[in-house]
Protein backbone atom coordinates (compact mmCIF):
# COMPACT_ATOMS: atom_id res chain seq x y z
CA UNK A 1 0.00 0.00 0.00
CA UNK A 2 1.00 3.61 -0.55
CA UNK A 3 0.90 5.94 2.42
CA UNK A 4 1.35 9.65 3.12
CA UNK A 5 2.43 10.46 6.69
CA UNK A 6 1.49 13.96 7.89
CA UNK A 7 3.31 15.15 11.02
CA UNK A 8 5.78 17.81 12.04
CA UNK A 9 6.32 17.53 15.81
CA UNK A 10 9.43 15.72 17.02
CA UNK A 11 7.46 12.90 18.60
CA UNK A 12 5.43 12.44 15.38
CA UNK A 13 8.64 12.08 13.36
CA UNK A 14 9.76 9.38 15.80
CA UNK A 15 6.51 7.53 15.09
CA UNK A 16 7.03 7.96 11.33
CA UNK A 17 10.54 6.49 11.52
CA UNK A 18 9.14 3.37 13.17
CA UNK A 19 5.98 2.67 11.17
CA UNK A 20 7.58 3.33 7.77
CA UNK A 21 9.13 -0.12 8.16
CA UNK A 22 5.73 -1.89 8.27
CA UNK A 23 5.77 -4.77 5.73
CA UNK A 24 2.46 -3.77 4.14
CA UNK A 25 3.82 -0.37 3.14
CA UNK A 26 5.27 -0.38 -0.37
CA UNK A 27 5.77 3.38 -0.47
CA UNK A 28 5.56 6.08 2.21
CA UNK A 29 6.19 9.83 1.97
CA UNK A 30 6.49 12.33 4.79
CA UNK A 31 4.58 15.62 4.63
CA UNK A 32 5.16 18.30 7.23
CA UNK A 33 2.41 20.69 6.16
CA UNK A 34 -1.04 20.81 4.65
CA UNK A 35 0.42 22.28 1.44
CA UNK A 36 3.08 19.60 1.22
CA UNK A 37 0.38 16.93 1.57
CA UNK A 38 -1.54 18.45 -1.31
CA UNK A 39 1.62 18.60 -3.40
CA UNK A 40 1.40 14.81 -3.66
CA UNK A 41 -1.15 13.31 -5.98
CA UNK A 42 -3.19 12.11 -3.00
CA UNK A 43 -5.67 10.08 -5.06
CA UNK A 44 -2.80 7.77 -5.97
CA UNK A 45 -2.21 6.92 -2.31
CA UNK A 46 -4.26 4.50 -0.20
CA UNK A 47 -3.97 6.12 3.21
CA UNK A 48 -3.06 9.39 4.92
CA UNK A 49 -1.75 8.91 8.47
CA UNK A 50 -1.70 12.03 10.60
CA UNK A 51 0.18 12.16 13.88
CA UNK A 52 0.01 14.98 16.42
CA UNK A 53 -1.80 17.03 13.83
CA UNK A 54 -3.95 19.67 15.52
CA UNK A 55 -5.14 21.56 12.45
CA UNK A 56 -8.10 20.75 10.20
CA UNK A 57 -7.23 19.00 6.94
CA UNK A 58 -10.13 20.34 4.87
CA UNK A 59 -12.41 18.58 2.41
CA UNK A 60 -9.73 18.83 -0.31
CA UNK A 61 -7.88 16.11 1.57
CA UNK A 62 -10.57 14.32 3.60
CA UNK A 63 -12.82 13.76 0.59
CA UNK A 64 -10.02 12.35 -1.55
CA UNK A 65 -8.09 9.94 0.67
CA UNK A 66 -8.84 7.74 3.68
CA UNK A 67 -7.36 9.68 6.58
CA UNK A 68 -6.65 8.51 10.12
CA UNK A 69 -5.07 10.04 13.20
CA UNK A 70 -4.48 9.32 16.87
CA UNK A 71 -6.55 10.98 19.59
CA UNK A 72 -5.84 10.57 23.28
CA UNK A 73 -9.25 10.51 24.91
CA UNK A 74 -11.96 8.03 25.76
CA UNK A 75 -14.79 10.44 26.42
CA UNK A 76 -16.58 12.44 23.75
CA UNK A 77 -16.22 15.62 25.81
CA UNK A 78 -12.51 15.80 24.95
CA UNK A 79 -13.02 15.80 21.18
CA UNK A 80 -12.69 19.56 20.80
CA UNK A 81 -8.95 20.11 21.17
CA UNK A 82 -6.19 20.02 23.85
CA UNK A 83 -7.42 16.67 25.22
CA UNK A 84 -4.29 15.92 27.30
CA UNK A 85 -4.45 19.19 29.20
CA UNK A 86 -8.21 19.07 29.76
CA UNK A 87 -8.17 15.49 31.03
CA UNK A 88 -5.28 16.14 33.43
CA UNK A 89 -6.94 19.28 34.77
CA UNK A 90 -10.11 17.21 35.25
CA UNK A 91 -8.09 14.72 37.32
CA UNK A 92 -7.99 11.89 34.75
CA UNK A 93 -4.76 9.88 34.95
CA UNK A 94 -5.63 6.92 32.70
CA UNK A 95 -7.29 7.32 29.33
CA UNK A 96 -7.40 5.70 25.88
CA UNK A 97 -5.31 6.43 22.85
CA UNK A 98 -7.34 5.73 19.72
CA UNK A 99 -7.09 5.62 15.95
CA UNK A 100 -9.85 7.88 14.68
CA UNK A 101 -11.26 8.54 11.24
CA UNK A 102 -10.09 12.04 10.33
CA UNK A 103 -12.93 13.78 8.50
CA UNK A 104 -13.94 17.29 7.61
CA UNK A 105 -17.31 18.77 8.50
CA UNK A 106 -17.41 22.58 8.70
CA UNK A 107 -20.73 22.47 10.57
CA UNK A 108 -19.26 20.36 13.41
CA UNK A 109 -17.60 22.01 16.41
CA UNK A 110 -15.50 18.88 16.98
CA UNK A 111 -11.83 18.91 16.18
CA UNK A 112 -10.75 16.45 13.48
CA UNK A 113 -13.04 13.55 14.21
CA UNK A 114 -16.42 14.88 13.35
CA UNK A 115 -17.96 11.43 13.07
CA UNK A 116 -16.98 9.80 16.43
CA UNK A 117 -15.45 6.71 14.78
CA UNK A 118 -12.45 4.82 16.11
CA UNK A 119 -10.88 1.54 15.02
CA UNK A 120 -8.22 0.61 17.60
CA UNK A 121 -7.52 1.73 21.15
CA UNK A 122 -4.90 1.26 23.85
CA UNK A 123 -4.49 2.48 27.44
CA UNK A 124 -2.60 5.76 27.84
CA UNK A 125 -1.08 6.77 31.17
CA UNK A 126 -1.43 10.49 31.89
CA UNK A 127 0.10 10.41 35.36
CA UNK A 128 3.63 11.63 34.56
CA UNK A 129 5.11 14.91 33.45
CA UNK A 130 4.78 16.08 29.83
CA UNK A 131 8.08 14.52 28.77
CA UNK A 132 6.92 11.14 30.07
CA UNK A 133 3.46 11.51 28.53
CA UNK A 134 4.89 12.41 25.12
CA UNK A 135 7.27 9.44 25.35
CA UNK A 136 4.29 7.24 26.18
CA UNK A 137 2.36 8.65 23.23
CA UNK A 138 5.18 7.78 20.83
CA UNK A 139 5.00 4.15 21.99
CA UNK A 140 1.20 3.92 21.91
CA UNK A 141 0.99 5.65 18.51
CA UNK A 142 3.44 3.16 17.01
CA UNK A 143 1.42 0.25 18.41
CA UNK A 144 -1.87 1.71 17.17
CA UNK A 145 -0.69 2.47 13.62
CA UNK A 146 0.93 -0.96 13.36
CA UNK A 147 -2.32 -2.59 14.52
CA UNK A 148 -4.25 -0.59 11.93
CA UNK A 149 -1.81 -1.54 9.17
CA UNK A 150 -1.89 -5.19 10.25
CA UNK A 151 -5.69 -5.25 9.94
CA UNK A 152 -5.87 -3.14 6.78
CA UNK A 153 -8.05 -3.23 4.69
CA UNK A 154 -10.46 -5.05 7.03
CA UNK A 155 -10.92 -2.22 9.49
CA UNK A 156 -13.88 -2.30 11.90
CA UNK A 157 -15.05 1.13 12.93
CA UNK A 158 -16.77 1.63 16.26
CA UNK A 159 -18.78 4.68 17.21
CA UNK A 160 -18.26 6.14 20.67
CA UNK A 161 -21.30 7.56 22.46
CA UNK A 162 -22.09 11.24 22.13
CA UNK A 163 -22.00 13.48 25.20
CA UNK A 164 -23.62 16.82 25.84
CA UNK A 165 -20.63 18.00 27.88
CA UNK A 166 -18.13 19.95 25.82
CA UNK A 167 -14.65 20.84 27.09
CA UNK A 168 -13.49 23.65 24.84
CA UNK A 169 -9.99 23.75 23.39
CA UNK A 170 -7.57 25.61 25.65
CA UNK A 171 -5.81 28.76 24.47
CA UNK A 172 -2.41 30.17 25.63
CA UNK A 173 -4.21 32.80 27.74
CA UNK A 174 -5.82 29.95 29.69
CA UNK A 175 -2.37 29.15 31.15
CA UNK A 176 -2.78 32.11 33.50
CA UNK A 177 -3.87 31.20 37.03
CA UNK A 178 -5.69 33.99 38.80
CA UNK A 179 -3.99 34.61 42.15
CA UNK A 180 -7.34 34.25 43.94
CA UNK A 181 -7.90 30.86 42.29
CA UNK A 182 -4.31 29.82 42.98
CA UNK A 183 -4.73 30.14 46.73
CA UNK A 184 -7.97 28.15 46.64
CA UNK A 185 -6.49 25.21 44.70
CA UNK A 186 -5.33 22.02 46.41
CA UNK A 187 -1.74 20.83 45.96
CA UNK A 188 -2.99 18.16 43.55
CA UNK A 189 -4.94 20.69 41.48
CA UNK A 190 -1.93 23.00 41.26
CA UNK A 191 0.28 20.05 40.31
CA UNK A 192 -2.09 18.89 37.57
CA UNK A 193 -2.57 22.38 36.18
CA UNK A 194 1.16 23.05 36.00
CA UNK A 195 2.37 19.65 34.79
CA UNK A 196 -0.03 19.52 31.84
CA UNK A 197 1.35 22.89 30.71
CA UNK A 198 5.03 22.02 30.91
CA UNK A 199 7.17 22.55 27.81
CA UNK A 200 6.40 22.40 24.88
CA UNK A 201 3.05 23.95 25.92
CA UNK A 202 2.48 27.54 27.12
CA UNK A 203 3.59 27.25 30.76
CA UNK A 204 1.21 27.98 33.65
CA UNK A 205 1.80 31.39 35.21
CA UNK A 206 0.59 33.88 37.78
CA UNK A 207 0.78 37.61 37.14
CA UNK A 208 0.79 40.81 39.20
CA UNK A 209 2.24 44.34 39.02
CA UNK A 210 5.78 42.95 39.33
CA UNK A 211 5.66 40.50 36.44
CA UNK A 212 4.77 36.99 35.35
CA UNK A 213 5.99 33.93 37.23
CA UNK A 214 6.06 30.86 34.96
CA UNK A 215 5.98 27.38 36.45
CA UNK A 216 8.03 25.00 34.30
CA UNK A 217 8.31 21.79 36.29
CA UNK A 218 6.62 20.40 39.40
CA UNK A 219 6.51 17.24 41.48
CA UNK A 220 3.72 15.91 43.71
CA UNK A 221 4.02 14.17 47.05
CA UNK A 222 0.93 12.84 48.84
CA UNK A 223 0.65 13.15 52.62
CA UNK A 224 2.95 10.63 54.28
Amino acid at each position, binding site marked *: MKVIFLGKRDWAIEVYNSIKQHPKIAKIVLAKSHAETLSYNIKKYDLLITCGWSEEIGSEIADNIMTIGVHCAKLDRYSYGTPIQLQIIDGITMTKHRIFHFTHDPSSPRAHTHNRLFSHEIDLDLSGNMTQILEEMVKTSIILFNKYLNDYPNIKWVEWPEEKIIRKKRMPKDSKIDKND*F*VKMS*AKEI*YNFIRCLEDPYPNAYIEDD*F*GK*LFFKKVKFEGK*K
Partner: protein
Amino acid sequence: MKVLICAYRDWAKEISHKISNNKNIIIVGNISNQKGLVKKLKNGLDVDIILFIGWSWIISDEITDNYLCIGIHPSDLPHYRGGSPIQNQIIDGVDKSKVTLFTLSSKLDSGDIWCKEDINLSGNNMNAIFKNIIDSSVTLLENFFKKYPNIEPITQKTGVGSYFRRRTPIQSKLVKQDLQNMNTLELYNFIRCLTTPYPNAYFEDDNGNRVFFEEISFSKK
Protein backbone atom coordinates in the same frame (compact mmCIF):
# COMPACT_ATOMS: atom_id res chain seq x y z
CA MET B 1 53.12 30.05 47.58
CA LYS B 2 52.16 26.54 48.70
CA VAL B 3 48.42 25.96 48.95
CA LEU B 4 46.36 23.06 50.29
CA ILE B 5 42.84 23.08 48.84
CA CYS B 6 39.84 21.74 50.73
CA ALA B 7 36.71 21.37 48.56
CA TYR B 8 34.07 18.66 48.18
CA ARG B 9 31.06 20.28 46.51
CA ASP B 10 30.91 20.18 42.71
CA TRP B 11 31.08 23.96 42.31
CA ALA B 12 33.92 24.17 44.83
CA LYS B 13 35.85 21.48 42.97
CA GLU B 14 35.34 23.41 39.75
CA ILE B 15 36.87 26.51 41.34
CA SER B 16 39.75 24.36 42.55
CA HIS B 17 40.24 22.99 39.05
CA LYS B 18 40.15 26.47 37.46
CA ILE B 19 42.84 27.90 39.74
CA SER B 20 45.06 24.82 39.56
CA ASN B 21 47.16 26.27 36.73
CA ASN B 22 47.77 29.61 38.43
CA LYS B 23 51.48 30.33 38.17
CA ASN B 24 51.60 32.03 41.60
CA ILE B 25 50.69 28.91 43.52
CA ILE B 26 51.84 25.35 44.06
CA ILE B 27 49.02 23.06 45.10
CA VAL B 28 50.29 20.59 47.68
CA GLY B 29 47.05 18.61 47.91
CA ASN B 30 43.32 18.47 47.34
CA ILE B 31 41.23 17.40 50.31
CA SER B 32 37.56 16.45 50.08
CA ASN B 33 36.60 15.54 53.66
CA GLN B 34 37.38 16.32 57.28
CA LYS B 35 39.09 12.97 57.89
CA GLY B 36 41.42 13.57 54.96
CA LEU B 37 42.31 17.00 56.29
CA VAL B 38 43.20 15.68 59.75
CA LYS B 39 45.30 12.92 58.19
CA LYS B 40 47.12 15.36 55.92
CA LEU B 41 48.03 17.68 58.81
CA LYS B 42 48.82 14.90 61.31
CA ASN B 43 52.58 15.23 61.09
CA GLY B 44 52.63 18.91 60.16
CA LEU B 45 52.59 20.26 56.63
CA ASP B 46 54.84 22.71 54.86
CA VAL B 47 52.15 25.00 53.45
CA ASP B 48 51.53 28.75 53.31
CA ILE B 49 47.77 28.71 53.05
CA ILE B 50 44.95 26.23 53.51
CA LEU B 51 42.11 27.31 51.21
CA PHE B 52 38.59 26.15 52.11
CA ILE B 53 35.99 26.43 49.37
CA GLY B 54 32.38 25.74 50.31
CA TRP B 55 33.51 23.76 53.35
CA SER B 56 30.83 22.80 55.90
CA TRP B 57 32.84 21.04 58.61
CA ILE B 58 34.05 22.89 61.69
CA ILE B 59 37.78 23.56 61.57
CA SER B 60 39.51 23.10 64.90
CA ASP B 61 41.40 25.88 66.66
CA GLU B 62 44.48 23.69 66.42
CA ILE B 63 44.38 24.06 62.66
CA THR B 64 43.41 27.74 62.51
CA ASP B 65 46.06 28.62 65.13
CA ASN B 66 48.87 26.84 63.27
CA TYR B 67 48.04 27.57 59.64
CA LEU B 68 46.74 30.51 57.67
CA CYS B 69 43.27 29.22 56.82
CA ILE B 70 41.25 31.24 54.36
CA GLY B 71 37.80 30.67 52.95
CA ILE B 72 35.34 32.03 50.44
CA HIS B 73 31.94 33.20 51.65
CA PRO B 74 29.32 34.18 49.04
CA SER B 75 28.21 37.44 50.67
CA ASP B 76 29.48 40.93 51.32
CA LEU B 77 30.82 40.21 54.83
CA PRO B 78 29.97 41.15 57.55
CA HIS B 79 26.52 40.93 55.96
CA TYR B 80 24.87 37.49 55.78
CA ARG B 81 27.40 35.70 57.96
CA GLY B 82 26.49 32.15 58.93
CA GLY B 83 24.45 29.56 57.06
CA SER B 84 22.62 29.63 53.74
CA PRO B 85 24.01 33.03 52.64
CA ILE B 86 22.88 32.64 49.02
CA GLN B 87 19.32 31.75 49.97
CA ASN B 88 19.04 34.46 52.62
CA GLN B 89 20.26 37.16 50.25
CA ILE B 90 18.02 36.12 47.36
CA ILE B 91 14.96 35.86 49.60
CA ASP B 92 15.76 39.38 50.83
CA GLY B 93 15.78 40.59 47.21
CA VAL B 94 19.58 41.02 46.97
CA ASP B 95 20.78 40.21 43.45
CA LYS B 96 24.10 42.08 43.38
CA SER B 97 26.49 40.99 46.11
CA LYS B 98 30.12 40.03 46.77
CA VAL B 99 32.17 36.93 47.36
CA THR B 100 34.52 37.54 50.26
CA LEU B 101 37.91 35.96 50.94
CA PHE B 102 38.50 35.92 54.69
CA THR B 103 40.57 34.26 57.39
CA LEU B 104 38.87 31.37 59.13
CA SER B 105 38.80 31.69 62.89
CA SER B 106 37.01 30.12 65.83
CA LYS B 107 34.06 32.48 65.33
CA LEU B 108 32.02 31.61 62.23
CA ASP B 109 32.56 33.90 59.21
CA SER B 110 34.02 36.61 61.42
CA GLY B 111 37.72 36.54 60.50
CA ASP B 112 39.78 39.23 58.78
CA ILE B 113 38.81 40.14 55.23
CA TRP B 114 41.45 39.89 52.48
CA CYS B 115 39.47 40.94 49.42
CA LYS B 116 36.07 40.88 47.74
CA GLU B 117 34.71 40.44 44.23
CA ASP B 118 31.32 41.31 42.70
CA ILE B 119 28.82 38.53 42.23
CA ASN B 120 25.53 38.42 40.39
CA LEU B 121 22.85 36.41 42.16
CA SER B 122 20.34 36.51 39.31
CA GLY B 123 19.36 33.35 37.42
CA ASN B 124 16.36 31.03 37.29
CA ASN B 125 18.01 28.27 39.24
CA MET B 126 20.92 27.36 41.46
CA ASN B 127 22.95 25.97 38.57
CA ALA B 128 23.04 29.43 36.98
CA ILE B 129 23.90 31.01 40.34
CA PHE B 130 26.66 28.45 41.01
CA LYS B 131 28.18 29.38 37.67
CA ASN B 132 28.29 33.03 38.80
CA ILE B 133 29.84 31.98 42.13
CA ILE B 134 32.50 29.98 40.31
CA ASP B 135 33.41 32.84 37.96
CA SER B 136 33.55 35.45 40.74
CA SER B 137 35.48 33.16 43.09
CA VAL B 138 38.11 32.38 40.45
CA THR B 139 38.62 36.13 39.82
CA LEU B 140 38.77 36.75 43.57
CA LEU B 141 41.42 34.07 44.11
CA GLU B 142 43.51 35.08 41.11
CA ASN B 143 43.63 38.67 42.42
CA PHE B 144 44.61 37.42 45.85
CA PHE B 145 47.35 35.08 44.58
CA LYS B 146 48.76 37.93 42.51
CA LYS B 147 48.98 40.27 45.52
CA TYR B 148 49.93 37.87 48.31
CA PRO B 149 52.01 38.32 50.50
CA ASN B 150 51.91 42.06 49.74
CA ILE B 151 48.36 42.39 50.98
CA GLU B 152 47.03 43.05 54.46
CA PRO B 153 43.67 41.79 55.65
CA ILE B 154 41.17 44.16 57.22
CA THR B 155 39.54 43.38 60.55
CA GLN B 156 35.90 42.48 60.06
CA LYS B 157 33.41 44.69 61.89
CA THR B 158 31.14 42.03 63.28
CA GLY B 159 29.20 44.63 65.25
CA VAL B 160 27.49 45.51 62.01
CA GLY B 161 26.07 43.27 59.33
CA SER B 162 23.91 40.25 59.95
CA TYR B 163 24.10 36.63 61.00
CA PHE B 164 21.80 33.77 59.94
CA ARG B 165 21.41 30.17 60.95
CA ARG B 166 21.54 27.57 58.23
CA ARG B 167 18.09 27.07 56.64
CA THR B 168 16.29 23.79 57.28
CA PRO B 169 14.10 21.84 54.78
CA ILE B 170 10.89 22.84 56.60
CA GLN B 171 11.67 26.45 55.68
CA SER B 172 11.09 25.52 52.02
CA LYS B 173 7.39 25.22 52.77
CA LEU B 174 4.82 27.69 51.45
CA VAL B 175 1.28 27.75 52.82
CA LYS B 176 -1.88 29.43 51.55
CA GLN B 177 -1.12 32.67 53.39
CA ASP B 178 2.32 32.87 51.75
CA LEU B 179 0.80 32.49 48.27
CA GLN B 180 -1.70 35.18 49.18
CA ASN B 181 0.79 37.64 50.67
CA MET B 182 3.87 37.23 48.47
CA ASN B 183 4.11 39.00 45.13
CA THR B 184 5.38 37.20 42.02
CA LEU B 185 8.94 38.53 42.44
CA GLU B 186 9.09 37.37 46.04
CA LEU B 187 7.78 33.95 45.04
CA TYR B 188 10.27 33.77 42.16
CA ASN B 189 13.18 34.56 44.48
CA PHE B 190 11.99 32.09 47.10
CA ILE B 191 11.60 29.27 44.59
CA ARG B 192 14.73 29.84 42.48
CA CYS B 193 17.11 29.91 45.46
CA LEU B 194 15.70 26.54 46.56
CA THR B 195 16.11 24.72 43.27
CA THR B 196 18.22 21.53 43.19
CA PRO B 197 20.51 20.65 44.99
CA TYR B 198 18.62 22.38 47.83
CA PRO B 199 15.31 21.21 49.31
CA ASN B 200 12.86 22.51 46.70
CA ALA B 201 10.22 25.08 47.62
CA TYR B 202 6.82 23.45 48.03
CA PHE B 203 3.24 24.32 48.70
CA GLU B 204 1.48 22.21 51.32
CA ASP B 205 -2.30 22.24 51.33
CA ASP B 206 -4.70 21.73 54.23
CA ASN B 207 -4.64 17.95 53.63
CA GLY B 208 -0.86 17.72 53.93
CA ASN B 209 -0.30 17.07 50.22
CA ARG B 210 2.65 18.84 48.65
CA VAL B 211 3.52 20.23 45.24
CA PHE B 212 7.23 20.93 44.74
CA PHE B 213 8.30 23.72 42.41
CA GLU B 214 11.32 22.40 40.52
CA GLU B 215 11.77 24.89 37.67
CA ILE B 216 10.45 28.39 37.10
CA SER B 217 11.15 31.53 35.10
CA PHE B 218 10.17 35.16 35.53
CA SER B 219 9.33 37.96 33.18
CA LYS B 220 9.53 41.43 34.78
CA LYS B 221 6.92 44.07 33.97
